[in-house]
């Protein structure tokens, strides 16, 4: 049986979130006027998104993807590398790469499970060296985004369901696998594996992790102590 390490992305490996990626595309539209218009739309939507995030992660995602409506897919793909250099790369946590290297050295298959979109993920996956990516895709009509995500939207319970589906298809032993996430929305995802790790946890997740005695990991600090199952395996 194989084992795998499932990673959440935003908040876990880097501090950048969905709104910032969208902000990038908005301010890099074809002309200056369009860029200003798009960017002001994004800024106006920020308070609403905050409120939605508190209410439900799924509806937050749903709403934030709507901002892509009308964008051409060529542009989303064509600017993805620049997006990575400008927005995503500077926000990577100092210890993220080391953690990914550790799990891959220990024989885990590294899998990114995130609500972000496929074209923004590509450079990240190449940068970190992920083996597999499970993520959202936008819906397009004639190469233009409709503002919806292809169902089912990857968030909360759906992440856990997809991980189980992936494990059964690829012959992965979930009891010996591990998962890393920062948010309480990912508790279902963390609960599917034998070694869940609360990584840079939010206050809510920290409380849950303490109750369930899950290890807590801080990637934001320059040096960090790994949870026991990773250390023990390394000694062997």
């Amino acid at each position, binding site marked *: 049986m194989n084992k795998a390490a499932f990673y959440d992305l935003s908040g876990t490996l880097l501090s950048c979130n969905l709104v910032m990626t969208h902000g990038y595309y908005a301010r890099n539209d074809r002309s200056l006027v369009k860029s200003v218009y798009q960017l002001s739309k994004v800024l106006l939507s920020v308070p609403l998104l905050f409120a939605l995030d508190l209410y439900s992660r799924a509806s937050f995602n749903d709403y934030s993807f709507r901002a892509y409506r009308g964008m051409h897919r060529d542009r989303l793909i064509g600017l993805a590398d620049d997006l990575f250099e400008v927005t995503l790369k500077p926000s990577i946590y100092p210890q993220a790469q080391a953690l990914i290297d550790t799990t891959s050295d220990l024989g885990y298959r590294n899998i990114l499970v995130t609500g972000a979109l496929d074209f923004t993920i590509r450079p990240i996956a190449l940068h970190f060296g992920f083996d597999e990516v499970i993520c959202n895709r936008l819906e397009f009509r004639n190469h233009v985004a409709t503002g919806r995500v292809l169902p089912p939207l990857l968030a909360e319970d759906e992440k856990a369901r997809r991980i189980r589906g*992936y494990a059964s298809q690829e012959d992965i032993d979930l009891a010996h696998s591990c998962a890393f996430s920062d948010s309480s929305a990912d508790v279902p995802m963390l609960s599917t594996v034998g070694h869940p790790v609360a990584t840079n946890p939010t206050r809510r997740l920290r409380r849950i992790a303490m109750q369930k005695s899950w290890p807590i990991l801080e990637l934001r600090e320059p040096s960090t102590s790994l949870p026991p199952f990773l250390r023990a395996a390394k000694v062997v």
Partner: protein
Amino acid sequence: MTAVEPWQDWRWNAVRGEYEAGVSEPLQGTGEISAIDAFSNRTMLLLGCTGFVGKVLLAMILDRFPEVNHLVIQVRRKKKLTGEQRFYSEVLPSPVLCQIAERLGGEDEVRRKVQIVEGDVNEPLCGISSEQIAQLQGKVDIVVNLAGVVEFDPPVNESFATNVYGVQHLIELVKLLDAKLIHVSTCYVAGKKNGRISEDEPIEGYFPKHSENGGATFSVAEELKWCEEVIQDTGQRSGADPRQVRERLREAGMNRAEHWGWTNTYTYTKSIAEQLLAGTPGLQYAIIRPAIVESSLRFPFPGWNEGFTTSAPLVLMGGDGLKGWPVRKDGPLEIIPVDLVAEGILIVIAAVLFRKNKRVYHLASADENPIMLPRLVAFLGMNSRYKHKHKEGGNRLANAWKAYVETQVITVESLHARRARIHRGLDVIHAGLTLGKTLLGETRVAPYLKSLRDTRRQIRTQEVTIDKFLPFMLYNSFIFETRNIRETARMLTSEDLKRVRWDPETIDWADYWVNIHTKGIEKWIRPMFAASRKSRP
């Protein structure tokens, strides 16, 4: 790893521009042709294997069809290197072949399968020695010719030597060996035409301006005579200066091509070669016409490229920040990844060996899945944006300009106006600097004059390159019909279709252009261009 495909059940439909549910089913063929059977224990003779398509084809045969037990490869001797030495020191270590050779079991395993014969298509019987021909007689089943001068406007004698006389020599060789022949030509033999180009057009006597002046007739014999006369005349008139002779011959070829309606010497000579084949009675042959051959899609790895005469100069110019592009808004660029060309050739070889082939095969993409020129112009702009935003050296103001201004589709008038403006500006600067030279002395101004000269040279090269490509992106708009290859691919067995397929309709052009093609050119072609520029005096 160049492609990161998310693990999901969605498939991109490139033609409709949307995702579709469901995993792709394995392809089903009717099984009238079996490529595996066709290749089992056969001997092939390949010519022109040192080229871009040739290497990929050779790699694909070695990798996908271990059934082929004997490959004879003709390699031209190069200075001190014999054909054999050249193959093992230049061709086999190339990035296309080295991994595949290793997987097969190293050089020894390749040597067991491959026989190198030295030769040159410019010589009678392709320069293969009579002992070797005697040894090959009756053994070779099929000859595949990929040799050719692919430069657009070479001196006409060079183009004729390989593309026309070379094919004459080839026909003699094939007759002597009693083999079947596959000849790789180009889609652009159609010449200056518009719209859909059929594969059924008669070959003999064809010339693009046929419909315009019905009275004229085109004959190969006449063209051969003309060529000889021109070479003689030019040699006598221009005296001893070989540079001038070359220039005259270059012009003569382009003018002759223009006269009959072809875009350049290359397509003109390639068409004559096709007519030679069609005019040979009893010859069993198929002609393969690829469109503009570009970076590989999947094999041997995504993004492999070493073709100079592709869209590479355009992509590099776009990356350097050229903003105005004179292209047709409603036209596609007829490009096709090199590995699809190799797969197409293999499918046709199988069909020819089963005697179920058509005469002409277009290998192109726009018939099923066109990529429109304005989309490509937008891609060039985004690449320039990325490169100049993260560029370290150079003028910061110029970089910022190039990073934030998008590319535009412009008209030809606007192109000329822009050029005139730039040249006027440079003239003014030049005048200023000359004045400065008299006032401030030579030493202070000399570096600026030098950089002005460099800029002028760069701009002129850019203009020449754009002009060379104008027939393919502005003046003419082609869609090459690809019915024959689709029909033939459907006749394969399902087992064959796991090894080779014809599926340009699945190409996701955005991903291909941005993540595969542009990066492939930056990685493989830019160093080649830089090296060739340095070696020039």
